[in-house]
C-alpha cells in the first residue's frame, strides 16, 4: 500500500523532476470517491473504479492547470504550489463532505482471514492489498521497461527537449504520467480507506511516509521505492512490536510501553537519517 503511494510519487518525482506534496490529497480523493460511490451503489468494486477515475481526473486537471507551469521552477516553488494545493483540496473536501469521517466496508469476498502455517491468522483483505502492490510493481516494471510509452517516459526523463524535438507531444505525455501517478495514489487511498476511516487529512501521514520511502530508495528509482517501502514497513512493524519488549527488560512495563511506542514512531526517521548520512542520494540513486 505504501508502495503504491511511493510508486506513484516516484513516477512523478523521478520522471518529471517535480516535488508533489499534493499527492496525499490525491490519495484522499481516491478514498472519498470510493466511499461515496460505494455508499451510493453498495459496491466496493465500483467504488474502486471510481477512486481510480477520480484521482486520475483530478491529477490530470491539476497538471494542466498548475503543475505544468512548475517544471522549470525550483523546488521551493514546487513545494509551495503543491502545499497550496493541499490547502485547497483539504478545505474543499471538508466543505463538500464535512469533517465527519466516512466508513468503507471491506467487500464480502475479501473479508475473513486465512490461517497461516503456524496457527497465526491474517486478514484476506490485507493479503489482497499486498497482492495489488506486487501486481502494480510488476505492471510498472513492464510499462517502463518494455512499452513505447515507457520508452518515451524514460526519454523525457533524461532529455526533455530532445523528446520534444522528436515530435512527441511532451505536454500530453506528462499529463498522462501525472494522471497515472495520481491514479495509483487514488487506488491506494481507496484500499486504505477500507482499513481505516476516510477523512480529511488522511493523506498526509502516508504522504510523508511515502517521501521517506522515496528518499531512502533513491529518487526516481522504482526498484528503490519497492525496497524502501518494504524496509519502512518492516521497521515500523518490528519497532512497534519489539521495542516495548526490549525496554521492558530494564524498565517498569508501563514506562517501557510508552517509551517504546515513542521510539517506534521515530524509528523510521532514524533509519532514514542513518541511510542518508552514509548515502546522501539514497540506496538506489537513479543518476548522478
Amino acid at each position, binding site marked *: 500500500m505504501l508502495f503504491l503511494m511511493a510508486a506513484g510519487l516516484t513516477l512523478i518525482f523521478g520522471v518529471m523532476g517535480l516535488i508533489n506534496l499534493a499527492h496525499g490529497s490525491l490519495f484522499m480523493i481516491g478514498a472519498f470517491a470510493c466511499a461515496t460511490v460505494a455508499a451510493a451503489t453498495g459496491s466496493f468494486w465500483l467504488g474502486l473504479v471510481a477512486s481510480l477515475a477520480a484521482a486520475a481526473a483530478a491529477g490530470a486537471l491539476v497538471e494542466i492547470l498548475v503543475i505544468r507551469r512548475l517544471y522549470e521552477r525550483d523546488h521551493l516553488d514546487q513545494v509551495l*504550489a503543491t502545499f497550496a494545493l493541499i490547502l*485547497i483540496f483539504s478545505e474543499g473536501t471538508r466543505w463538500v463532505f464535512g469533517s465527519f469521517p466516512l466508513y468503507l466496508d471491506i467487500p464480502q469476498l475479501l473479508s475473513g482471514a486465512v490461517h497461516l502455517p503456524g496457527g497465526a491468522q491474517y486478514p484476506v483483505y490485507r493479503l489482497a492489498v499486498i497482492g495489488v502492490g506486487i501486481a502494480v510493481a510488476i505492471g510498472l516494471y513492464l510499462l517502463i521497461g518494455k512499452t513505447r510509452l515507457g520508452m518515451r517516459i524514460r526519454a523525457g526523463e533524461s532529455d526533455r527537449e530532445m523528446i520534444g524535438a522528436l515530435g512527441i507531444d511532451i505536454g500530453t505525455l506528462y499529463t498522462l504520467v501525472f494522471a497515472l501517478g495520481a491514479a495509483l495514489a487514488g487506488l491506494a487511498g481507496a484500499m486504505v480507506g477500507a482499513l481505516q476511516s476516510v477523512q480529511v487529512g488522511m493523506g498526509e501521514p502516508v504522504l*510523508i511516509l511515502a517521501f521517506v520511502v522515496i*528518499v531512502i530508495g533513491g529518487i526516481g528509482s522504482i526498484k528503490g521505492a519497492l525496497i524502501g517501502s518494504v524496509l519502512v514497513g518492516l521497521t515500523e512493524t518490528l519497532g512497534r512490536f519489539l521495542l516495548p519488549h526490549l525496554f521492558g527488560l530494564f524498565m517498569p512495563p508501563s514506562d517501557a510501553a510508552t517509551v517504546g511506542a515513542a521510539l517506534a514512531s521515530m524509528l523510521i526517521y532514524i533509519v532514514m*537519517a542513518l541511510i542518508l548520512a552514509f548515502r546522501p542520494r539514497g540506496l538506489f540513486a537513479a543518476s548522478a
Partner: protein
Amino acid sequence: MSRETIVTALLVLGLLAAPFAAQAMGEPFYITLATRIAILALAATGLNIALGLGGLVSFGHAAFFGIGGYAAGILATHAFNGEPLLLGLPGTNQMIVIWIAGAVIAGIVAMLIGLISLRTSGVYFIMITLAFAQMIYYFAISWPAYGGEDGLSIYVRNAFPGANTLVPMSFFLISFALLAAGLVLFALIRDSRFGAALQAGRQNETRLAAVGIVPFRIRLAAFVVSAMMTAVAGALFADLNRFVSPSMFSWHMSGELIVLIILGGVGRLAGPLAGAIVYVLFEFALGGITEHWQLFLGLILLGVVLFARGGVMGMLAGRARHG
C-alpha cells in the same frame, strides 16, 4: 534612502503603531493580533536566514519553533509545580532564561540535524529536514510526561523583569522588541562577510568553493543561527497562547513559515514581516466570513507562486538589489 528601506520602515512602524491605535479605540483584541504578527514574523525571519540568504529550503523549521515552545512550556510547568527538572535544576518562569534555554537547545538540535542533512541538497534536503521535524513531532506526541498529544498548558504567562506580561500591550512590546532585534540581526548578517559567503553559496556553490570557502561550514552555521531565532519565536508563541502542543512541530507549521516568507518576499529584510501581516490579517478577515478560509489562502498562495514572484515586498519595493 532606497525604496526598500522606506517600505521596511513603514511596515515596522505600522506594526508598532497598530496596537496603540487599537488601545485608543478600545479594541484590545487587535493588540493580540499584532503580537501574533510580530511573533510569526520573528519565526519566519529566522527561517529567512537559512532559506532566503542561504537557499536552504528547510521544511522542518517547525522543529525549532516547537522546541522553543516546549522550552517555555516545560520550564514553566516545573516552576509552577515546584518539581526539579533534571539534575536538581528547577524550572523557571523568567522569559529571558527560557529564551536562552530554547535557543541553545534548538541550536544544538540544529547542529545535529544540519550535520546530516546539509550533506544533501535540493529535494533530499527538503525531505530530510521534513523527516527530522516529523521525528520530533512523533516524539512529542508519544512522550506522555509533557502532555503527549494533548499538549501542555502554561497557567500563568511567564514573567519579564519590570513588566506585567499579562497586560497585552506589555507582551506586545516585548515581542516587538525581539522582532526588531531579529530584523537588525538579519540585516547585519546579510551585509557581513558571513552573509556574503552564505548568499554566494546559494547563487553558485562551485564559485564559493573555488575561492576557497567551504560551503558546508557556512551553511551549518547559518542553519544553527536560523534555528535559534525561530526557537525564541516559538517560546513567545507558547506564551502568547499559554499553551503548547505537538502541532507546533507539525509539518503544516513548517509549511506556514515558508508561506510567510514567500508571501512577503524571499531573502528580503521585511519579507517575513510583510508576509506575516498579510497572513494574519487574511486569516482574521476571511476566518470571520467562512471557516474554509484556508481554501482561499491556498488559491492566493498558488497565485503568488505562479504569477507574482517576489511577494508583497516585490510589489511594494521593486525587485531585490544586491549591492
